[in-house]
């Protein structure tokens, strides 16, 4: 397995492979690296993918726990919360702030982009690893450090940051207002480090997909999910810069007495909102696109049909990416921006729903006339499209500047963006995990348990957020800690809806027990082997062993066709792997 061959350009890869080769002392088997090298210091893209995934899931548990705590407080204000205790208003603010921060930056981003990107890109384009394996490892290490700093921010004097995940100044910029000097500084630091981690990872994804595709694979032969992760990385890279600059300015405001954002001394708090949302809105598409890509691949595989209008779909994605840079101020309609500017941003916001709707239509067109099998990944894939649609449609109300004056900062907004982010992050994770885990671990998951898990999760999810649309329309402001303090909102019919939402959350959380049972049963009891290609899919990752060995492919895969050649009438088999040579 010596791979010191003709390497001429980049020290990185050879180093990575050498690490694998050298570290064999202490183990009898030559291929086996030591525990630290294998699990903590690995440069293998599959191991880094798992590191990102499990770190993300662990963070999601914290985020979910925080959601449990503040939803209980909202349903039963002032009562004792099991496994939490009594919740103060400051703790409430800290919980909502960090729930949002964690779910977006430490769950959706690492799982959807970093974990699946790392796992899938080299496998799907037919190479052994990323082009910069050591930078890849560094990316995870910086990410882990940022997660540790975020968790540390809960434990410092003053507690964690409590100025909402959007960190609007002056609340976030001055510890006299937020009473969490260390917490807010550490929060900004953690977020900034997390950005660095994803910039490093993103450069790796983009260059790998550009430069290391297997022979014969054109750009238009890449599976949808690879395209989507690469485009998401480019969007992230192009949008996060101003916020990094903004984060530096906020850190200066917090710690060195500058007043970039402090209105009482001549600063401009709306400036932060511009910098934040210039990143924040493309960020929605940064996490959306990978999930869209996964669902597209899954829907094509389980419809046994060519993905409808693959190229058109990609053009709509390019369009979405470009338009996503011109919609940010729809978050600021009531922040005192010029009404003429609000008009422009209303128009761009409504326009961006067109390409997104087109993606959904193309997925529906793929389903039309297909031989659909409702496997667990397919259920998640379909649920993603359906549930995200609800999020998209309610966004149209909020994108119209006139309507937004009424909806702004109400629970309608909360329900809307959870109908986008829960499908993206949670449904997206389960969709990807149930589809690609046979490749990742070589073992099949239990379908029945998977379906039970799916249905209970989906019912719980809708039960949380449908009632919140109504409480929002009836005037529930999203940043209230105890509705009993507001007589017009402390009405029983509203409180009933809040309780239903909390019960929905409890259902959704308890549904995850079935997922854990499924993992334990499938991986430790039944151990049903997956084989190389359990779903009979075309893309390259299914043409190598499950789980893929170090180096992935034994021989060079040559690519002859696009990824979605299913059910061709002239062929006996209903799929045609990308690397299968055409009959002579």
């Amino acid at each position, binding site marked *: 397995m*010596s791979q010191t061959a003709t390497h001429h350009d980049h020290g990185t890869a050879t180093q990575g492979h050498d690490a694998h080769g050298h570290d064999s002392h202490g183990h009898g088997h030559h291929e086996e690296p030591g525990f630290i090298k294998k699990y903590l210091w690995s440069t293998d893209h599959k191991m880094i993918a798992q590191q990102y995934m499990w770190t993300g899931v662990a963070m999601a548990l914290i985020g979910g726990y925080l959601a449990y705590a503040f939803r209980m407080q909202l349903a039963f204000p002032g009562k004792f919360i099991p496994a939490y205790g009594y919740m103060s208003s400051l703790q409430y603010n800290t919980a909502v702030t960090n729930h949002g921060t964690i779910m977006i930056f430490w769950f959706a981003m690492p799982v959807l982009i970093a974990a699946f990107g790392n796992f899938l890109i080299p496998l799907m384009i037919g190479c052994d690893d990323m082009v910069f394996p050591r930078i890849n490892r560094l990316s995870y290490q910086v990410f882990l450090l940022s997660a540790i700093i975020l968790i540390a921010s809960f434990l410092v004097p003053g507690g964690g940051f409590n100025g909402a995940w959007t960190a609007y100044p002056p609340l976030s910029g001055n510890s006299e207002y937020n009473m969490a000097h260390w917490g807010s500084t550490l929060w900004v630091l953690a977020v900034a480090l997390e950005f660095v981690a994803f910039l490093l990872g993103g450069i790796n994804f983009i260059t790998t997909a550009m430069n290391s595709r297997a022979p014969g694979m054109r750009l238009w032969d890449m599976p949808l999910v690879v395209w989507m992760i690469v485009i998401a990385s480019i969007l992230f*890279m192009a949008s996060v810069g101003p916020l990094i*600059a903004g984060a530096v300015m906020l850190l200066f405001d917090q710690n060195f007495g500058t007043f970039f954002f402090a209105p009482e001394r001549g600063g401009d708090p709306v400036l932060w909102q511009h910098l934040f949302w210039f990143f924040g809105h493309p960020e929605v598409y940064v996490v959306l696109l990978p999930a869209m890509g996964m669902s597209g691949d899954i829907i094509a595989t389980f419809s046994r049909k060519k993905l409808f209008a693959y190229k058109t779909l990609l053009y709509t994605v390019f369009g979405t990416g470009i338009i996503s840079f011109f919609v940010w101020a729809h978050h600021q309609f009531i922040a005192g921006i010029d009404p003429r500017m609000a008009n422009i941003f209303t128009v761009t916001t409504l326009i961006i729903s067109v390409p997104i709707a087109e993606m959904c239509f193309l997925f529906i067109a793929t389903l039309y006339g297909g031989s659909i099998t409702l496997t667990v990944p397919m259920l998640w894939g379909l649920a993603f499209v359906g549930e995200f649609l609800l999020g998209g449609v309610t966004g149209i109300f909020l994108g119209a500047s006139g309507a937004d004056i009424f909806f702004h900062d109400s629970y309608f907004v909360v329900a809307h963006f959870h109908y986008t982010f829960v499908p993206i992050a949670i449904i997206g994770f389960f969709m990807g995990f149930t589809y690609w885990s046979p490749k990742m671990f070589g073992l099949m998951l239990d379908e029945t348990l998977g379906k039970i898990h799916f249905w209970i999760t989906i019912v719980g999810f809708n039960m949380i957020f449908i009632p919140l649309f109504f409480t929002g329309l009836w005037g529930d402001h999203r940043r209230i800690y105890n509705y009993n303090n507001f007589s017009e909102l402390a009405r029983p019919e509203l409180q009933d809806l809040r309780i239903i939402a909390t019960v929905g959350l409890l259902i959704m959380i308890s549904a995850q027990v079935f997922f854990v049972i499924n993992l334990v049963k499938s991986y430790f009891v039944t151990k049903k082997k997956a084989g190389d290609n359990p779903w009979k899919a075309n893309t390259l990752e299914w043409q190598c062993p499950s789980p893929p060995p170090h180096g992935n492919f034994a021989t060079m895969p040559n690519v002859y066709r696009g990824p979605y050649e299913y059910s061709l009438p002239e062929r006996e088999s209903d799929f045609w792997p990308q690397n299968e040579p055409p009959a002579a």
Partner: protein
Amino acid sequence: MSTAAKPIATLRSVTGVPTGRLAMWWLLASEIVIFGGLLMTYVMHRIGHPEWATEAAHTNTVAGAVNTVVLLSSSLSAVLAHQAAQTGNGKKAANYLWLTILGACMFLVIKSFEWTHEIKEGFVLTRSTFWSFYYCAAGLHALHVIAGSIAMAIVAIDAAKGKELQRVEYAGIYWHFVDVVWVFLFPLLYIAK
């Protein structure tokens, strides 16, 4: 199975551009957005605050101009290093890189004298938002100068042994970027009164 038939990512170059150079351009793209965001913010504020001109009058234009010359000349040696690396002369490339690093150090020394003087005069970070921007933007740039020097030192040590010569070019690309940022900072912070 032969090694040549193995699908090694780093041995491929589908675009024809070496992967290292490609990655450097993407890195610079992300850097451009960072500095672009900061400078756009500054320019918009500057337009909204004509009174900052009196503050800006206290910047040391001479020191800034000298630093511009120092930084731009240091790019010349970066180019010569690239030229030497292309002909396979690692020793010469390394020497030119050390010369570039010397330029970077001169830049930082002049900058620290300049800042010490300004701080003594009372033009500190918190005096007004102009000075906050001044120290923020120039400070972020100075961090890039330091990071670039460290990177060039690592590349130079390898290049002197004739190893990883292609990195000389990448270091040079990065150094030109650091230059270009300063070319924007100098008129915006020093000259515009």
